[in-house]
Every structure is written in C-alpha cells, then in structure tokens.
C-alpha cells in the first residue's frame, strides 16, 4: 500500500505503525510519530493499523531555539 511518509509517497507492506517503523529503518531510534496529523504514542504503535493513503510523520530530536 501507499503511505505518505514525511511527505513522500512510500510503498510499504506493514499492517501496523510499529512494523512500519521497523521496515523504514527506525527500529530503536528516538522518534515520535503522528498518523494523519494525530499523535500516536509509542505504546500504541503496535495496535495502530495503517491504511492506504495514510499520512505518517516521523520526527526526531533536532536543534532548536
């Protein structure tokens, strides 16, 4: 299915958000996620299903002022 990951359309075969992060190479990384503009806590990733066309945001620590 097609998922928009950080603004980029991505082919992804993952039933849930936890599997998607693993498939995208974020396993164990310090990241936070939002699905269709709503925050998904890390504890809920494994039970959050993905659907075709979902918009997934993955963010990490960055410099800020």
């Amino acid at each position, binding site marked *: 299915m097609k998922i928009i990951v*950080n603004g980029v359309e991505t082919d992804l075969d993952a039933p849930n958000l936890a599997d998607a992060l693993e498939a995208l190479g974020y396993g164990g*990384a310090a*990241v*936070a996620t*939002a699905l269709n503009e*709503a*925050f998904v806590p890390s504890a809920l990733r494994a039970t959050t299903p993905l659907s075709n066309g979902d918009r997934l945001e993955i963010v990490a620590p960055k*410099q*800020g*002022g």
Partner: protein
Amino acid sequence: MVSFYGTQVASRFMLGTALYPSPSIMADAFRQSGAGIATVSVRREAGGGTAGGDFWTLIKDLGVKVLPNTAGCYSVKEAVTTAQMAREIFGTPWIKLEVIGHSDTLQPDPFGLVEAARILTDEGFQVFPYTTEDVVLADRLLEVGCEVLMPWGAPIGTGLGLTNPYGLRTLRAQFPDVPLVVDAGLGLPSQAAQAMEMGYDAVLLNTAVAKAGDPARMAQGFARAIEAGRLAFEADPMEPRDMAAPSTPVIGKAFLG
C-alpha cells in the same frame, strides 16, 4: 536560583541549540555560557537516519535541562501535536509553546496561544509560552494554567534588543510573582543586562550566540551580562535625576582663586 514549575535552575541563562557552525562549537558555547536550560525541537528525519539520536546524545552529555519548542507552528492543532511528540521524545513535561501568527515578524498568535496553552496544561504539560508584552494576554495565559511567561524582546533572530522597554517594565510590574523570561530578539549582552536590570528572571536567546564570530566567547559575554544585570536588580539601583549632584564632597574644598 530561579524556579520554573517547582524546578530550581542555577543559571538565569537559557540558550538555544540551533544555527551553530558545528556541534562541537555549540558544545563549547554551552560550556562557556553556564546555561542550565537548552531549547531543542523535533523535526522530520530521513529514513533510518541517526542525526537526531546523535544530537540528543550530545545534549544529554551537556548536563542541561531541555526545553523542547513548537517552533514554526501556525495552528493550535499543529502546536499541540508537536508538543505531544516532543514530550515523548525528550521525556519532559516542559514545552516552549510557539503559535506563530505572522510570518514576517514571527509574532505570536495570541488567540491560538491561549487555546493551545489551555489544551496542553489540561494534558499535564508545563507550558512556557512565547508571548508578547501584552498584559491582557499575559493574564489569559496565567488563567489557563501557565506559571511562567516568555515575552519577546524583539522579533526572533533580529538582534534588535528590547524594542518596547515600557511594555516589558509594565509586564514585570503587573506580575511581580510570576517567573518572566525575555525570549528572542536579543543581539548583545548589554540588552540581556537591561532585561535583567528590569527584574526579569532569565533570558533565552540563540542567534546572538550561534551567529557570533566566536560563539563560545559571546556566550561568556552574555553569561556575565546576565549575572551583572541580576546583581544590579537585587542591589536596588539609584533613582535617576535630571540635575547634576556632585559625588565628591563640596565642603572642605581648598580655596584656590
């Protein structure tokens, strides 16, 4: 000591982590600044990248408290979601809440700011709102649960200093017991000293240090100015007057013609 939401912080200098020429220069600047709080953000990271993790490790090694921001958010929803993500990543209820209302000045959107502050406070966040010197807005932010206010000195990144000293003095006078931090717009240590002399509890800046030719040296300059300004405030400065008043005694002056 200054206290934010019951947490005591030794330094009154809050420093940003962006715009430095390199991570090691940033770390040097922090060491010279003595800052106790570092502002950070969350941003997209490319697949599998570790840059965010490396940055986070560097910050943790500095031994400072982190204050994540919602920089660049123009809507309440965006700011709230960003705050939620930041809390999970950085493991702190503290959030520097920015809801921007105007792209040229990066002026806070006062209406969105109050609404986002209310939502986040209800969710257990400890909100540090990036606000203006408006006393009515300050009242509203306190009403929804903010226990610290961070008025701008000037628009972010301008280095113009305190553009509305009257407004900042008024805010300080209206809320004597609320921790107040001048956040943004400072360019020189003298401007930080001015804020501290007014009785502000701390200052937060980034660009003035990061964009200086020698960030570590500028950080040291700001640190000393902040300390000097605070000492002056605590020392209860003299009242200015219009006419001269000799400091050297007049009595006993030799008559020499």
